[in-house]
């Protein structure tokens, strides 16, 4: 496999640390992740697991005291980490775009949404005013905004939450990016709107050849639209697999715990499985496997040494000693 051809995004051994007064927090620690062309890749985990910082690192938007300390981020085979700020500005919003959880805070309240959507094209596209307007209207109808010409003149507060998120998506897609990073895009929305937005993202991915990095804590959302999933915990990737493989053949105790603690839609049980304890502080990580203090299957080995990502076959990798031995042989 030549990664440069088939991968839209290839993150290799990325580490982003925050240098705080209390010590160094490794928010993203040696993360390797790839997003193939025409695919939706999920990055899941709980608050503080490093999923959003991974996304910000790709865009080089990590602000102080955070810094990317090592690794590589390649977009279509082109290294992003060495780019100058000016070159990065040419990439953001153009080749890589991002949508956020709360559309109201990411839209400027004093400009019409049309102006905000056209801004990206004016900066990146060398398009004329009329051309930009035509494309904005086209994009508004592609994302399902009714009466697009009329809506261009609306201000963000005049739109509902669902429409605002559609505007955000239109803005993200208008330059036909290679990659769209969606950070919890439906978390603030009602379920019926969420279903519409997820549907729309799937459609756009197929139509515009844009890969999507879907950052979420919601396993339901992952199951709904992702092709491949990375599960993160305390800055590390714990498990990664094809979507069906991950749900059918879950291996890592943390992933099992995450799935087990979802109130099931289907069977009613009085007690939910719960992972004991809570996410460790990044400033005070446990020795060995980061999940070991909360893991029911932890052994003394887990507490002294950190497992690597073991190949479990079929594109499934697990950072757990339980799945180490059987597969080491297979690999060699």
């Amino acid at each position, binding site marked *: 496999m030549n990664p440069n051809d088939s991968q839209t995004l290839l993150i290799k051994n990325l580490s982003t640390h925050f240098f705080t007064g209390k010590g160094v927090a490794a928010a993203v620690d040696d993360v390797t992740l790839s997003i193939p062309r025409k695919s939706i890749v999920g990055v899941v985990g709980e608050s503080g697991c490093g999923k959003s910082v991974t996304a910000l690192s790709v865009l080089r938007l990590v602000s102080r005291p955070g810094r990317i300390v090592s690794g590589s981020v390649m977009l279509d085979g082109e290294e992003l980490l060495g780019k100058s700020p000016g070159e990065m500005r040419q990439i953001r919003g153009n080749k890589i775009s991002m949508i956020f959880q709360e559309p109201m805070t990411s839209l400027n309240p004093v400009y019409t949404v049309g102006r905000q959507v056209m801004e990206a094209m004016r900066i990146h596209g060398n398009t004329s005013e009329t051309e930009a307007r035509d494309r904005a209207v086209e994009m508004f109808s592609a994302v399902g905004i009714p009466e697009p010409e009329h809506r261009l003149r609306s201000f963000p507060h005049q739109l509902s939450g669902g429409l605002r998120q559609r505007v955000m998506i239109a803005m993200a897609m208008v330059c036909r990016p290679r990659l769209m990073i969606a950070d919890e895009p439906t978390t603030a929305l009602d379920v019926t709107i969420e279903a519409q937005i997820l549907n729309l993202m799937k459609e756009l991915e197929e139509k515009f050849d844009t890969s999507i990095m879907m950052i979420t804590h919601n396993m339901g959302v992952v199951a*709904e639209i992702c092709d491949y999933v990375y599960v993160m915990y305390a800055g590390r990737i714990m498990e990664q697999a094809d979507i069906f493989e991950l749900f059918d053949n879950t291996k890592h105790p943390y992933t099992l715990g995450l799935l*087990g603690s979802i*109130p099931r839609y289907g069977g009613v049980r009085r007690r939910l*499985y719960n992972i004991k304890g809570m996410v460790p502080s990044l400033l005070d990580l446990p020795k060995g496997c980061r999940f070991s203090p909360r893991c029911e299957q932890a052994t003394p080995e887990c507490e002294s040494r950190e497992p690597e990502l073991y190949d479990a076959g079929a594109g499934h990798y697990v950072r757990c000693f339980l799945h180490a031995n059987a597969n080491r042989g297979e690999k060699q």
Partner: protein
Amino acid sequence: MTREENKHCLLEVDDVVKEFALRGGFSRSGQIVHAVSGVSFTLDEGETLALVGESGCGKSTMGRLVLRLIEPTRGAVRFEGRDLASMGEPDLRAVRRRMQIIFQDPYASLDPRMTIYKIIAEPLLTHKTHKTRIETEFRVRELMSRVGLRGDQMNRYPHQFSGGQRQRIGIARALALNPKLIVCDEPVSALDVSIQAQILNLLCDLQDELGLAYLFISHDLGVVRHISDRVCVMFLGRLCEIGPTEEIFSSPLHPYTKFLLEAVPKPDPHMRKGKKALLAGEMPSPVNPPPGCAFHTRCPQSEDICKRLAPGMKSFGPRQAACHFTQ
């Protein structure tokens, strides 16, 4: 709505209407927000009734009406058979000990300048239930251990706790006066799934031990299915459907309930369907609710009668639904 003469009935909400007048703004004065329009339900002792619906459907307003934190425009809320609206201040104070609330955001609902001891002891001191500081402290420790906090943490401040622990503090405060009813307003929505499971388990355990009744307000249908005995589905201030949880989830009667259940992303990739049936259009405004059935502008089954006539609640065994076409 038929009134069951059940001696265990704790709470009775009878055709409650709440309208808010819009003031100020540019040209909005004189307009009225119809937040809750004629909602009736009952809640038995030890039962969990969920209020579900999307933002703006009036479920949180309903929760506040039940506690008489706001006054209904019309209709009655009866707690243990007595109308809250007609109660004077002393009676209301006595009743308020028996009904409590847990809020969504454990960061916003705890005073950052109060220690955990002060937060949990506040209702005890307000209602003068314990004579001495030692007795009060004993009770606070007891409450803290009941919700899974260590008693030696009581001199700390809220910012020293995680979201899940703060929610436990909120629960301990709600339990302080031995309530019969707790209104849970999105109690786990702000929490991570693993913490959410811990809190849901805690709420279930407390219900079993203390015989609490929960009015559980949530937009998360997975959580609702897990925790509640009965479900009320609301749309734009009105009830669509009410009935036992499993029956509603396995065979919804109202078209809106069907859309709502269909829309929930299921944590199982094998349940992906090619295309979901999506709800068309936008949520109508509660300032200007559509005439007739509030859902008719978005309902695929809508016919002439829906535009003219608001459907009443019809009974179907233990369930009720408000749709002209439900058989």
